[in-house]
């Protein structure tokens, strides 16, 4: 681990730095990390396929909450999904602590949390349904109504906003022909504003279902939509 001393008051020439290379879709090669590709940045092959039963108990509660394939009628907590919940339950001193993971699981299967779904989760965890509703509605990532197959969340918070987040949002709305929060007629798209996604160095950050798209410019939008369909 090498240490470089502070260069106080040294000369610098900003124009000598190369311009940032745009990389819509992922935050990767800026020219300073040769050979770094999307997989290298995102660690996709490192992570590999995650099993439906959640894998090791320590991480069983971490599977996606918003995927493109979903069925509002899908049974909850059966087969590998039940196994997953059991693993999660084993990691906490009480059942209530499994509420967020259980809601994630229901969300992953059904795409949103209907009153019926909340009721089923409540019953499974032996919690009052009203309590489950209170918790579910506190967190913005739980959809309480159906959304499009692709939920497109565009960050318009300060860092992205300074770099044109509003225009990216506009572009998504224009190209999907929807209003914010409204599902497109073909059921494919729901576009909405989202608060800071924690990718401020890669504006505009857009989350589509569970995945981030970074450095998105308004003109990148058609290609992104095409890539999804």
């Amino acid at each position: 681990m090498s240490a470089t001393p502070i260069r106080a008051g040294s000369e610098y020439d900003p124009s000598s730095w190369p311009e940032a290379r745009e990389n819509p879709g992922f935050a990767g090669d800026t020219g300073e990390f040769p050979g770094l590709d999307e997989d290298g940045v995102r660690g996709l092959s490192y992570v590999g396929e995650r099993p439906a039963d959640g894998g090791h108990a320590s991480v069983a509660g971490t599977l996606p909450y918003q995927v493109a394939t979903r069925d509002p009628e899908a049974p909850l907590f059966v087969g590998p999904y039940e196994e997953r919940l059991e693993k999660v339950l084993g990691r906490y001193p009480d059942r209530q602590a499994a509420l967020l993971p259980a809601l994630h699981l229901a969300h992953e299967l059904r795409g949103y949390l209907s009153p019926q779904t909340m009721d089923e989760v409540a019953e499974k965890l032996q919690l009052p349904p009203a309590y489950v509703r209170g918790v579910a509605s506190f967190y913005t990532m739980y959809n309480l109504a159906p959304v499009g197959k692709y939920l497109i969340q565009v960050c318009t918070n300060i860092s992205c906003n300074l770099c044109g987040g509003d225009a990216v949002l506009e572009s998504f709305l224009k190209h999907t022909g929807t209003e914010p929060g409204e599902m497109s007629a073909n059921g494919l798209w729901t576009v909405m504003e989202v608060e800071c996604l924690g990718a401020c160095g890669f504006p505009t950050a857009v989350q589509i279902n569970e995945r981030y798209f970074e450095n998105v410019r308004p003109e990148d939008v058609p290609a992104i939509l095409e890539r999804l369909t």
Partner: protein
Amino acid sequence: MAYPYRHDSEVRLLSEHFGNPRARTLEGWVELGGYRALRKALGMDRAEVVNVVKASGLRGRGGAGFPTGMKWSFMPKKEPGKPHFLVCNADESEPGTFKDRELMRWTPHALIEGCLIGAYAINAEHAYIYVRGEFFEAAQIMARAIEEAYAAGYIGKNILGSGIDLDITLHIGAGAYICGEETGLLNSLEGRRGEPRVKPPYPAIAGAFRYPTAVNNVESLIAAAQIVENGAEWYRQWGTEKSTGTKLFCVSGHVKRPGNYEVPLGFNFREFIYDVCGGTPGGKAIKAVIPGGSSVPILTADELDIGMDYESMAAAGTMLGCGSVIVMDEGTNVVKQVRRMVDFYAHESCGQCTPCREGTAWSAKILKRIELGRGTPDDLDTLLDISDKMTGKTICVLSDAAAAPIVSSIEKFRGDYLALMEAGDLALAGAR
């Protein structure tokens, strides 16, 4: 080498392996010297681990800057039947902050190691890593790494043959900025609404599941592991007397080279922005800089000749926060950006405390009206008075955070507000 750019002025302790996919695998990590710190810690007395971190002067990197070793030393003596918990706060949500995400996705094993050392130090058998729900990608990398570490015996029963059992559980949030507040996070971990708790009792006495708990930021834990490996004096060679070591700074907004950079605390702020980050695109003049995330007072371009450390920032009337530097160039509509930040706080307020629940929403409405050219100068007095009534009056500091940009922007950019008022309906035309 921080990511996605690097600079020779950096001191790369935490970020040395950013951009190197090999570092994220267990095999690669061990090759690079990983888990040596853990071996060393397990050979030390628990108190010794706490003491070396204390002696290093490491301060919490989540925003508050509370000394990490001190926090650990507040943990009570272990009583039978009363477990201790370590909770890693990876709910990185402060606008402008994206360092923990990079730490987790490039060096997941560094965090695992930090958690294990922290848990050992405070005599906990179980550590929870609370990752914000949006960080699906980082969480999956963490998950894979945890599975690897379990399989290799770094986590679980009798780790590294030490006779010590340590578990780690990855817990995923669901979209709530307030869960970055440590007691809000604990409530969320327990399956509740993420509402901050009244303190006292502090987490060290009644934390997760009402048991003694230490809550530490991702960067703090990774730094602590390096300190345990290399010693307190090693760490103190960087930074200032009271702000020791290095820190990851997240730079966003109008800079040529946005991203994370790791520099020693005390680094000159102006040099950082103009040299390390390459200044503004197109060389435009800087109008304003937020030095520590959206919750801290704004600085003007004239106020940048300060050190990037806790004390210097405080002396300049702002805060180092979590090191999130947001740069705004001369073309920026400051009022719009302040309004956007306050909208954020209104959206993220948990709603418990009246001044925050009502004050954030009311301020946001006033700011929106001003942005649209319908404001009057007395709105500024109202905003300042509301801000005063939101500051220091609530359970947590979210409402203080919402007030900070309002107050500092009215103080420093009053002209921008007045110009919008004068422009009236034409204000929209000039909006950016």
